[in-house]
């Protein structure tokens, strides 16, 4: 049975080692369609899967580059840090956790507050950073956003907040909770002054962030597939003791139930916001 005998000698492992092309890091798997995609293609496509249109999470800096002209902005209050009002200690003091986060992200807290131009129009913009303790809202985040609202009001420049957050920051207790009221009250002033506020909800936006500023935009828009809700899916599953249906609390679900103005693809986000601001404020001269 010559069919089964090898006609060529087996390849030497050493030889194969030399011939192998290093592909590590060049490819990645889409979290949604499970297909292998070329990382470069993903980057060129704004971190959106070229095969299934799944929107990968992006960090705050990448978001700012995407939305602002020439990828340039001026940052505010970047040195504001929490002073740990509760002196919160669990397995590890909150102060240490903060320091480690600051080291890892080179941010001082979970938001970047900036001003820049969006298709030539000056805007105030805040982008939450999910990597920093889940984008959670404590005293610093509340204060930075409130100050951004005040700048927006003083200069009559439209406000954009891009949310990505698990909600209020547990480690700052009721202080975090009251930030919801503080920011919402500031938005009341912006609302009455008729300065536009566009809330962009990205994956995921839940808890105290959704239940305050993220739902208070003149327009509330979201990226496709973003998880948006008050209670997180795990908490709801524990309450009702059954699995949640596919697509529950996703952006499309909220659109269907009337809580979003639009679901906007990442590629269309900047032009969409620009058109909205043209509508609200008139074209830029």
């Amino acid at each position, binding site marked *: 049975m010559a069919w089964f005998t090898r006609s060529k000698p087996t390849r030497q492992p050493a030889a194969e080692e030399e011939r192998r092309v290093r592909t590590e890091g060049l490819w990645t798997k889409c979290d949604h369609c499970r297909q292998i995609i070329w990382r470069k293609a993903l980057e060129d496509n704004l971190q959106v899967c070229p095969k299934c249109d799944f929107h990968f999470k992006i960090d705050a800096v990448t978001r700012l580059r995407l939305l602002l002209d020439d990828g340039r902005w001026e940052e505010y209050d970047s040195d504001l840090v929490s002073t740990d009002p509760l002196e919160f200690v669990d397995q590890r003091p909150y102060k240490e956790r903060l320091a480690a986060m600051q080291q890892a992200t080179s941010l001082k807290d979970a938001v970047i507050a900036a001003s820049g131009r969006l298709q030539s129009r000056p805007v105030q913009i805040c982008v939450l950073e999910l990597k920093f303790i889940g984008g959670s809202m404590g005293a610093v985040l509340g204060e930075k956003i409130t100050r951004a609202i005040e700048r927006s009001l003083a200069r009559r420049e439209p406000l954009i907040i891009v949310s990505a957050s698990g909600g209020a920051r547990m480690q700052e207790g*009721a202080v975090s909770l009251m930030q919801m*009221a503080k920011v919402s009250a500031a938005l009341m002033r912006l609302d009455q002054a008729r300065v536009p506020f566009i809330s962009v909800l990205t994956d995921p936006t839940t808890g105290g962030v959704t239940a305050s500023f993220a*739902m208070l935009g003149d327009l509330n828009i979201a990226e496709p597939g973003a998880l948006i809700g008050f209670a997180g899916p795990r908490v709801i599953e524990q309450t009702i003791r059954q699995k949640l249906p596919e697509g529950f609390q996703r952006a499309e679900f909220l659109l269907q139930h009337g809580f979003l103005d639009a679901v906007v693809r990442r590629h269309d986000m900047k032009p969409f916001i620009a058109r909205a601001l043209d509508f609200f404020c008139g074209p830029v001269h």
Partner: protein
Amino acid sequence: MDKVTAPAPEPGEAWQRVQLARHPKRPHALDYIQRLFTPFEELHGDRCFGDDPAIVAGMGFFEGMPVAVVGQQKGRDTKQKLYRNFGMPKPEGYRKALRVMKLAAKFGRPVVTLLDTPGAYPGVDAEERGQAEAIARNLREMAALPVPIVTVCIGEGGSGGALGIGVGNRVYMLENAIYSVISPESCAAIIWRDAGKAELAAAALRLTAQDLLRLGLIDGIIAEPPGGAHNDPDGAAELLRVTLRQALSELAGLESEELIEQRYLKFRQMGNFFAETAGGSA
């Protein structure tokens, strides 16, 4: 780096307060309403979807003065608890609350809100009808209400669910009430992956009335009868009456703009717990 160790004055104290705040015999919103706002006519429904029994709202008369009352309501026995959904409001509850507050504003009547909830209801229907949107809208609209708002946390101040009717010109807590961003059980489940560590979490969260006063988040603490409000509901109501009378009369002298401004500035300064650092990580 300065090492911080929690002072934790009395470790078990916070947990004891949690137990008192949830005591099965503790007076609920209607117990106070019946004693302080006579007569009282309940108003139902949000004009959109339905009526939420977890929030009671209505027209009351406090010592002859017309006052709108909004409170989160828990049940006493099992049947009542189910009817009141354990005091966990749904979006229609928050929308009813706002409707009644706006009604009060239209006719220049002050508003008293009573907080007592484990939290806003975390269920499928509540999400479908926009729980987050309902709470967010209340926070913004209450900030603009042109009449006095006096808020008292009478039991459990369960996070955003409580705050959703809690943006007042004056905010008080009963001596044994708690007010927190998360329940001690959930906090323990997240941090220690063990809900049994709730006692530790309760202390870490600084959720007692004394803690909130120290953090500058409330205006005052209302004493309770010895042993707690459940020992003497009438006495507890009378102690609440004194504070309400004083707060309402103080606020009665303010114009609409002053009320809105005072409320705004009060919340604006909450949580001044940050510092400017110059470069480098802290």
